Every structure is written in C-alpha cells, then in structure tokens.
C-alpha cells in the first residue's frame, strides 16, 4: 500500500512504533523499520543490535539506534528469542535508510506466541491502518 510518499508492503505486519514484521516460511519473524520510520529518524549513524539468544517481549525496547545525536529505542514486534541480527549494520547502519524492507532488516526472532502477537499488529488491509499512518504523517509534517 502506498500512503503519501511511503510504501508499506502488504505482506508485512506493523506496530504503532513503525516497525514491520515478516513471517518467514520456517515461522521465524524478521523485524525492521518502516520506510516512514527511517525517514523521520534521519540518517542512522549507529544501530546496536542485540546478541543472539536474547529473550524479547512484544512492545518492550530491545535495541537502540542513533541519528542526529538522538538515541532512540526499538521495541520488539513479537515476543521470543533473537536467532539472528543483521551484522552488516555495524559498519553500514544507513542500510536501514537505503533499504528498510530489505538489506536494512534488524533482527530475526523465534516467536514464542506468534499467533497472539500477530493479532495485536496491524496489516495494511486493516481499516485502522491508513488513518493511523496518515495521522502519524501529519504529526511529523510528512
């Protein structure tokens, strides 16, 4: 779905913190920052990814990133265990800006309660999605 200048791929789930989640064939969840989120963040100078094996709780911060001398926290889209983190971000954190839905992915999570967590996330087809995003864009003057 295209809203304003931002693309929101329809196969993803979204939370209200502008993170996306994609369920892989093996049931793991890949999480990243939406195109809108990376735009309002500005150039991301550093992303501190979590260690593998760390337990995450949906909606709780688990990693941080810095842009404009501002440290922002990223919340988990689903509960579970970190099975992989994007190591390329250590040297090239602006991959998040360049390719937020691809090479700029953040972590891969083995979800512990996938169906319940997904039910609390939004799809582009949800009636609330577009009004929510338009409201957010207007808040940020986008």
């Amino acid at each position, binding site marked *: 779905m295209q809203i304003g200048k931002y693309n929101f791929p329809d196969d993803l789930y979204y939370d209200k913190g502008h993170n996306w989640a994609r369920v892989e064939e093996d049931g793991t969840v890949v999480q990243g920052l939406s195109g809108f989120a990376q735009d309002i963040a500005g150039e991301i100078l550093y992303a501190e990814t979590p260690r593998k094996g760390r337990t995450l709780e949906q909606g709780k911060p688990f990693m941080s990133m810095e842009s*404009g001398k501002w440290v922002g926290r990223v919340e988990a889209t689903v509960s579970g265990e970190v099975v992989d983190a994007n190591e390329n971000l250590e040297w090239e954190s602006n991959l998040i800006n360049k390719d937020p839905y691809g090479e700029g992915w953040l972590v891969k999570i083995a979800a512990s309660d996938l169906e319940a967590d997904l039910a609390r996330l939004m799809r582009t087809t949800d009636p609330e999605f577009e009004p929510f995003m338009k409201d957010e864009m207007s808040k940020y003057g986008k």
Partner: protein
Amino acid sequence: MNVYDLGHVPWLDSQLLYHALPRVGEAGLILLAPATPYVCIGYHQDAAQEVDLNFCREQGIPVFRRGVGGGAVYLDGQQLFYQLVLPLEHPAAQGDKETIYRRLLAPVVRTYQAIGIPAEYKPINDIVAGGRKISGNGAGEIAGHLVLVGNLILDFDHAMMSRVLRVPDEKFRDKLFKTLSENLTTIRRELGHVPPEDELKAVLVREFESVLGPLQPAELPAEVRAKARELELRMTGADWLMRRGKRSRERGVKVQAGVNVIERAHKAPGGLIRAVLVVREGRIVDADLSGDFFFYPAEKLADLQQALAGLHPEDAEAAIAEFYAAHAIESPGVTPADFAQVLQVPA
C-alpha cells in the same frame, strides 16, 4: 512541571540524576554543574577508541558513558547543564527530531541572546554564535521519556578537551586543538566576562517556561536520589563503560555540525599516504600529508598542502594534477589520483 536547581553537585550526580528521573516516572528540568571535571562519552561510542583512558586515569579524570547520544566531551564546572525530561507524549516532544530540537533549544538560544550573545540554532542540535558552537546537546529516549541534555558554556578548557580524546598522534592533536579553539566559543570569550550563574539560570528558566508552561522550583524527590544510587552500581562498572560501541575505520572528531578533524590513509603502489584533514562544510580547510612515499622536490609537498585548502574533495584530483604539471613533481608509484583518494572525506 518542576525545576530542580541543584547548584554544583558531585560529578557523578551530574549524570545519574537525569537518568534516574524518568525511571521513577517523573518529568522535570534539572539545572546543575559538576563540582569536578570528567569526560563523558555518547551512548553508542567506544570508550577505548574515543578517549585517552590512560591519560584520564593518570590525571584522575573519571570517564562516564551516558544514555543519550552525541560524542565524547570534557565537562567541568564552567558549564551549566540543563537536563530536560519530558514524557514522550508531552506536546513539546511531538514532531521529528529537528522540530523537537529547534523547539526545545529555542529557550537556550534566547538565553544567550538575552545576555547579549547573538546565538542561533544550527540544525540538527547545535547552537552557534558567529558561526562558533556555544552549546552542546544530545537526546535520548529513556523509560518512556524524552531526555534532552545540554549546556551553557561559561568558559572552556580547549587544551584539556583535545588532550583527553584519543588521537593518532600529536599532529592530529594540534589540529584538533586549533580547530576546537576556532570553532567552540564561550560566554567569557563573547562577553569578556561571565554573568552570575543565578542570573543565567533565572533567564533560562523563564525562557523554558515559555515553551513548557510554569516551572515550580522543587526539592529533588528522595526516590530520584535513591534510584541514582541504584544506577551508580551499573553505570560506573567496567561492563557499562567498556561495552562495545561504534567502531570507525578512520579516526575523526566532530567539533561542531559540519566541522570535522579526520585522519585518513591510502596505500598507493609507491607507499602509504596519510592525511590529517580539517573539513568545514564539505571543503578542505587544512590538509597535512605524510607517509613513506617519495616526493620530488620534497619542499613542494608543503605547497601542495596549501594548494588543497578551500577545495571540495571531488575537485582535488584535477587540482593536484595541475600542481604536478606546474612544478614538475615526481612521486614514483603515487599519482594525483592516489592523493585525491586520501582526501575523499564524507560530506
């Protein structure tokens, strides 16, 4: 909202209290200064890479990692800190980063203006007077709150700032000191004197009230101090200070937005070229070239360095080639393109 005017406090409290305030669910504005000097690094920095830890240890200068962004700084009692903690949903915390910085730094800009310094906001979070930085600021999200920390710089020890940072060599340090001195100013330098701190704080509070609404002077709650003592255990440990941070392939120090001192190296077939560069708004201000290459006539290397001043890096190769032709330069295995390579600094 409350304002906590704490005066000069033990250096550790000058950091711990604003980390504690949001963790007990409180908002407020803290005004304070550290009683003794220390070095403070940004949340994502690598202490060993940024700070001369041996020097700091020998001099008894503590080093602390804060929970907000930005770079390594030398802090002392000649800087008056403002530490603003707002719930993320506070109206003044809405918008993108630049909007929030501009909004929340406006009271600081107006404080400088009120005492006769023509300060202005420079995106994304600097305040400058006459093009020179006069306030450093950083922000972070801590426990559901936006935390903005910054300072009014009454006076500054430029030499100590350039001493506490880890640099490749003394040549780099000299450039850093010179660039800092030229690009970081103070209230004393601008006015010739420093107004009484109480006067500065009164103006600052009044100006913050114009953005945040009335600020009530209050005692810092005991639970905030207790939380600070709890944080002290974690935030003074080696695990916290020495945790891995952002690693850089080249050494660089950002003096203010758009002004950087950078060391770069390039391995040419004829030898290693090393450059210590001062870059301002994308232009080379100063270039110091060295290495183990041959360059004839040797005395012309200084002239080449001078010829680079004012250039955009992308124009460097043509300028160097012209210099080679004009002065019949010979440098086996090192071409103008090799020199240009070492000058390619990020915009």
